């Protein structure tokens, strides 16, 4: 790749959150908005249908299964596997509730004025918190760029909240 034309096509990605009287004003690059909407959509599909992207992982490049993703997104609550599985079954409706992710995706795709009420920040945390585990494990250092961005979004939102919130 050579030539200045390449660089003029590169725009900075950013996500900023600032406290304003009506809530938190969000400002983000078009690419970040698209990626966040895409991640919310992937989470919705996983929560509602169990659909995951076909990905290989680890030294043996094993195909990641739906059960793999479910167990890292909702890790064992009890030491005994049977009890942990029973917990996931008992609370399946709450664990797989996609309402927050739908609201966040709608904001990202339909809204021009990005002012999020402070009470709605929890929707963003309930979306991009679990969405990280669609692609990343909970342990290890190779969580990747997507997780770094989703953490940055959560960090920016929490820091923008008023101290009393």
């Amino acid at each position, binding site marked *: 790749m050579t030539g200045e034309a390449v660089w003029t096509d590169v725009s900075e990605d950013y996500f900023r959150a600032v406290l304003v009287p009506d809530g938190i004003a969000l400002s983000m690059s078009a690419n970040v908005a698209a990626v966040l909407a895409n991640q919310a959509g992937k989470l919705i599909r996983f929560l509602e249908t169990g659909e995951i992207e076909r990905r290989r992982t680890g030294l043996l490049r094993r195909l990641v299964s739906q059960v793999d993703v479910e167990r890292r997104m909702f890790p064992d609550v009890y030491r005994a596997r049977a009890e942990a599985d029973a917990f996931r079954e008992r609370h399946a409706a709450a664990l797989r509730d996609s309402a927050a992710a739908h609201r966040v995706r709608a904001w990202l795709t339909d809204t021009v004025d990005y002012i999020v009420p402070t009470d709605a920040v929890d929707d963003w945390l309930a979306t991009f918190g679990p969405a990280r585990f669609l692609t990343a494990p909970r*342990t290890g250092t190779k*969580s990747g760029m997507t*997780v770094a961005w989703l953490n940055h979004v959560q960090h920016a939102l929490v820091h923008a909240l008023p101290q009393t919130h």
Partner: protein
Amino acid sequence: MTGAADSRWRVELVNDDVNIVCVVVHLLRTHCAFSESDATRLATEVDTRGRAEVGAFTDQGSAEELAVTLQRRGLTAVVRHDG
């Protein structure tokens, strides 16, 4: 949530390599009703000691409800039963 002495079902937060301290502090304040200083102390305990108790209940259902709330926001929560 009840006094620890009466409780048999405990919810613990477990450390991982993904969650960041400031978000954990916020979630402990909003969903476990901890003060800023207590939430910060517990998040630090998770980070340094690997886990911390964030809830104690007399019934399994309430403990599991908190575990669901925390897991839905990406945290690693477990339930422990005394006795």
